[in-house]
C-alpha cells in the first residue's frame, strides 16, 4: 500500500516536472505585437482604483501630429508606462495630457455640442476593454503610408518626407523657443563583434524628433565613448532600446542601424 502511494506520487512528480519544463517559456519565441498594438501603452496608476477603465494611449495617433520632443521634453512625460504618475487634477490643471487635451489644441474632458449639450469625453482615453472608435482608424488611415517591415509597419520618416504627416515641434504656451544648436556630425558606432556591420548614427535624424534633451545626458552621456552599452542592454529596453524597443522602429529591423558595409 505504502509503495503504491509512493509510486503514484513519483509518477505525479515526474509529470509535474515535465509540465514545468514544457511550460516555462525560455528558449521559445515571444509573441510580437500586431501593427496596431505596437507602441500602445496602458496607463493605470489610479484608474482601476477609482473604478474607471485604464487609459489606452496610442503612440501612433499622436506621432502623426507631434514630434516626440513635445511630450517627452516640453510636457515632461516619462518614457515608461505609468512613470509620470498622472492624476486627473494634473490634466485639469493643464499638465501632462491636459497640456493639449484642453478643448483647444485637442478635445478636452467635455465637448460642447450645439452650444447647449455637453458631451463627456472620458471614454475616448479611458478605453481599456471598451469598444471605442478612434477618429482615425489604424488600417484605413495608414493604408497608403510607406510600408516598413515591423512595428506599426509604417516608415514614419518617409511619411514625413512625403508630406503625409506634418509634425508640430512647438506648442504655444507650453514650448519655449530657443535658438537651435547645430547638429553634431554623424558618426559610426563600432561593432564589437567581428563581421557585424558598424552602426551609422545620425544626429540630424534623431534631433528632428527629439531635440538634444531627450537623450542627453540621462540616456547617453554627452561625450563620445563615455556611455558603455551593448546589444543585450538595448534588447532590455535601455539606451537605444528606450525608444527602439517600444515605439520607434523596433530593434528587430537590424539593417536600419547596422548599415556600414563590411570590407
Amino acid at each position: 500500500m505504502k509503495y503504491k502511494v509512493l509510486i503514484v506520487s513519483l509518477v505525479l512528480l515526474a509529470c509535474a516536472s515535465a509540465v514545468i519544463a514544457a511550460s516555462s517559456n525560455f528558449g521559445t519565441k515571444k509573441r510580437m505585437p500586431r501593427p496596431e498594438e505596437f507602441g500602445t501603452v496602458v496607463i493605470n496608476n489610479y484608474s482601476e482604483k477609482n473604478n474607471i477603465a485604464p487609459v489606452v494611449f496610442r503612440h501612433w495617433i499622436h506621432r502623426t501630429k507631434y514630434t516626440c520632443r513635445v511630450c517627452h521634453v516640453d510636457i515632461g512625460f516619462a518614457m515608461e508606462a505609468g512613470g509620470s504618475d498622472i492624476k486627473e487634477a494634473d490634466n485639469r490643471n493643464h499638465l501632462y495630457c491636459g497640456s493639449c487635451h484642453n478643448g483647444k489644441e485637442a478635445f478636452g474632458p467635455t465637448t460642447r455640442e450645439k452650444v447647449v449639450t455637453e458631451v463627456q469625453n472620458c471614454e475616448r482615453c479611458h478605453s481599456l476593454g471598451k469598444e471605442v472608435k478612434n477618429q482615425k482608424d489604424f488600417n484605413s488611415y495608414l493604408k497608403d503610408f510607406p510600408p516598413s517591415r515591423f512595428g506599426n509597419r509604417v516608415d514614419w520618416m518617409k511619411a514625413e518626407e512625403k508630406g503625409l504627416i506634418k509634425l508640430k515641434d512647438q506648442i504655444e504656451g507650453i514650448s519655449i523657443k530657443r535658438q537651435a544648436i547645430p547638429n553634431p556630425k554623424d558618426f559610426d558606432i563600432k561593432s564589437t563583434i567581428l563581421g557585424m556591420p558598424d552602426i551609422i548614427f545620425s544626429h540630424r535624424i534623431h534631433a528632428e524628433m527629439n531635440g538634444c534633451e531627450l537623450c542627453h545626458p540621462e540616456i547617453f552621456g554627452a561625450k563620445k565613448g563615455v556611455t558603455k552599452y551593448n546589444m543585450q542592454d538595448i534588447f532590455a529596453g535601455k539606451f537605444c532600446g528606450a525608444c527602439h524597443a517600444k515605439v520607434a522602429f523596433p530593434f528587430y529591423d537590424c539593417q536600419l542601424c547596422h548599415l556600414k558595409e563590411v570590407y
Partner: protein
Amino acid sequence: MRGVILFLVVVLSSALACTSGEKGVIPGTQFDVVWEFAPLPPPQHYGNILISRLTRSSTHPPVAFSHWIHRRRYTCRVCHFELNIAMKTNVTDITEAKIRKGEYCGACHNGVIAFAVSEQTCKTCHAGNIGASDGRFSELSEYPRAKYGDEVNWVKALKQGFIAPKKSLINPNFVPIPFERVLRLEPEWNMIKTRALFPHQKHIEWLDCADCHPDIFNIQKKGTKHFRMDYINSGKFCGVCHLTVAFPIQDCRRCHPDLK
C-alpha cells in the same frame, strides 16, 4: 496515513520546484537520460500541420498547411516574422476576415501573388487532411537529398539554385546582414567529443537575426540558460524549428560532425 503524508510531501516539493523557476535544476532532466525522439511522420507529411484554432468549433474542416510547398518560394522570415505568424500551431489569431483584409495568409493569397480566398478555393486550404499535399510531393524529387524529415537537403537546394525563395514581401531590395561566424559549441561533458557547429550564414539565408535573437537565444556568450539537448528535444532553442520543419533532430551529424 503515512502514504498520504508522503504524497503531500512529494506534491509540495514539486510545487517548490515550480516556484524556484528557471534557476534550479529541474528534476527529470539529468544527463543520463536517454533521449527519446518523437517518431517522424512519413517524408511527405514532415512539416505539414493542421490549423484548427477556429474550425474545431465549426463545421469547416481544418486548414492543411504544408511547409515544404511554401518554403520553395519564400524564406521562413517572410511568414514567421514579417507576417507575424507564430512558430506554434493554432497560436496566431488568424481569421477569415483578416485574411481577406490582406493579413497573415492573405498577404499572398490575394489573387495577385497566390490564389485568392474564394468559394472555389476554400477546399484547397480547408482540406482537413494532413496529406492534402501528397500529390505534389514528387515535385521535390529532383532536389538534393537528405536522410530524414522531408528528405530534402534544403540548404543545398538553395545553394545549388534549385529554389530561390524570396527574402522579403515588404522590401524587395532587402539584403540580410552577412555574418559568416561559425560558433563552436563545446559540450559540458568531459571525455565526449560531441561539439556542435553553428553556421550563422546558413541560417541567415532563411531567417532574420531577430528571428532567434534575443527571444530564443540570448546574444551574450554563455548567456543562454538551459541550452541543453533535452530542452531542444522538448521544442525549445534549436527545437523551435529542428523538430518539425527544418531537418529533424534525428540527423545528429549535421550539427555534431564529430559524432561517430
